[in-house]
């Protein structure tokens, strides 16, 4: 058996090295393209998901979001809870939010927006929004009459960059009127403009907690949500479990939960698209390899008949072609991997620009391995069937061809 396989391999190597160069290169190229196709699509999707993850963690909710129980509008005793959470091992800091719907007015433009009250010193430790001021400065604790606004609400200088209605190019230093739902209307000084690249974060407007209390005329110990940053090596689901140990009624979600909620459908659709791409790729691979081996074997029918007459076992002949296919597949996978790696390298330097950020393909090793295995299985079948058909022919029939 081993001896026979060695002979098959001997024949396969000769068949590849001394057969038609053109068709060899073409076959390898096609397998390489098929492989690239199988890897590239999922890598872009993973890239998208990675961007979404980063944005959720960095600019929106940190690692964990705590929101009120579904029967309630607010988290009560918010600062006491914040204190407790801050003490959990693995938690860097929790930040309390109070958000409310407001109307913004600037130079005749009116826009509904979500205004969030924050404690800037806490918030700085939880999100990186403070690093993303495209104009002016971030808020500081205790400041009154100041507001910071996201660029998708303030508006770009170049209107074509706006993704929705805006206030029409509001800048740091400009006055903006905020109308609260309780009837209070107040003019704020725009301290800075936020531009993170995350559409969600760039729509918001922020004031300090002190400002909120002065507008409401009382101490506020209510929160609409609380966001938590964990240690880089903490495992969020563990921290989530710890928070639940306080026996709180509030809803605690890790960023993974949120991503699942926000993108679950999209990810499912992507996965579907992905499967279609992979199936189509595999079909192309099967057809190409099948045809290549069918032509090779049909051209060698008489040859194969003669070898069998000389006493060469049918399996040696079949395995010869199977080895040829597997060798071509190996070369195709190597070329394909090189292609994918080069494309990833190029796209890392020049990423795809999407509204939600810069997307760089992320190649998952598991995808590489799975697709390689699938390609090998498919190649094996595509080589075996035509080789088996010709090698099973009666000796004299084959020799007469």
């Amino acid at each position: 058996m081993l001896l026979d396989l060695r002979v098959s391999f001997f024949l396969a190597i000769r068949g590849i090295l001394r057969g038609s160069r053109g068709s060899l290169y073409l076959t390898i190229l096609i397998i390489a393209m098929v492989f690239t196709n199988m890897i590239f699509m999922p890598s872009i999707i993973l890239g998208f998901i990675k961007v979404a993850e980063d944005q959720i963690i960095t600019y929106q909710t940190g690692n964990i979001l705590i929101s009120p129980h579904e029967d309630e509008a607010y988290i009560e005793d918010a600062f006491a809870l914040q204190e407790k959470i801050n003490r959990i091992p693995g938690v860097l800091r929790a930040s309390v939010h109070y958000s409310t719907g407001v109307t913004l007015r600037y130079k005749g433009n009116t826009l509904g927006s979500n205004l969030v009250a924050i404690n800037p010193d806490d918030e700085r430790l939880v999100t990186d929004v403070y690093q993303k001021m495209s104009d002016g400065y971030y808020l500081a604790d205790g400041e009154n009459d100041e507001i910071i606004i996201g660029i998708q609400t303030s508006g770009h200088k170049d209107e074509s960059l706006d993704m929705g209605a805006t206030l029409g190019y509001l800048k740091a230093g400009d006055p903006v009127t905020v109308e609260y739902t309780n009837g209070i209307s107040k003019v704020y000084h725009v301290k800075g403009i936020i531009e993170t690249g995350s559409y969600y974060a760039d729509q918001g407007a922020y004031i300090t907690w002190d400002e909120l209390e002065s507008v409401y005329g009382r101490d506020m110990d209510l929160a609409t949500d609380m966001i938590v940053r964990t240690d880089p090596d903490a495992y969020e689901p563990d921290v989530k479990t710890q928070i639940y140990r306080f026996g709180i009624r509030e809803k605690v979600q890790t960023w993974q939960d949120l991503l699942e909620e926000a993108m679950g459908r999209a990810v499912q659709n992507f996965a579907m698209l992905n499967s279609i791409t992979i199936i189509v790729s595999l079909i192309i691979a099967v057809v190409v390899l099948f045809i290549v081996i069918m032509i090779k074997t049909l051209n060698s029918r008489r040859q194969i008949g003669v070898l069998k007459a000389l006493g060469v076992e049918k399996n040696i002949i079949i395995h010869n072609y199977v080895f040829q296919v597997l060798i071509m597949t190996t070369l195709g996978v190597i070329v394909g991997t090189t292609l994918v790696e080069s494309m990833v390298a190029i796209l890392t330097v020049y990423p795809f620009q999407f509204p939600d950020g810069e997307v760089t393909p992320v190649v998952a090793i598991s995808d590489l391995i799975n697709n390689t295995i699938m390609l090998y299985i498919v190649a094996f079948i595509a080589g075996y069937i035509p080789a088996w058909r010709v090698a099973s022919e009666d000796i004299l029939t084959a020799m007469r061809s």
Partner: protein
Amino acid sequence: MIIAENLTRTYDMGKVIVHALRGVSLTIQKGEFIGIMGASGSGKSTLLHLLGLLDKPTKGRITLAGVDVKTLNDRQRTRFRLKRLGYVFQDYALVPELTVEENVYLTSMIRGTSKEEYQAQTYSILERIGLSDRLNHKHNELSGGQQQRVAIARAMVNKPEILFADEPCANLDSESSRNVLDLFKQINKEMAQTIVMVSHEDWHTEYFDRVIILRDGLIISDGKKSD
């Protein structure tokens, strides 16, 4: 030694039944150089295929080196051909992707001969046929006569009990044909190689020890030449 008893081979073509062989009996002794002759369609190739285990008779019995070949299954027939028989065909049928030497030792590899041994055997047989300077040539770098001699070397490297050749000179000019026939004769004489060769060229008879003439699937003449 080959004993063929009352071999018939019919092809059922639906409307007609072709009687390629109608009852052929013969005995071939070790060391004989036998020519099977006759007009085209007389059943020469059919007989050779039956004797060489490439086909099965409709009726009759073949005993090869003491073995009733009916008792062999397909795998055993393949092994038998690999280990004990040799073949030369009209169109040489060298494996195009292999060099001269690789073509010659391919079946030795399968038989499990060691590399040193089969390389030595290959060299010595190629030297004998005057092609030892062509070890690494490809078939398309050789003339028809040279290719046929490589095919003979391939068949001979294993020192088969019987060497079968079906019109090995049909594609060759008369000079190359003589070269090839001389080689067969030399092998037959020097190595006491049993050879069964199909031919339809009358002048080939001078090379054979014994000539069997077929007509319509029957032996009409079987004569040892008295030399």
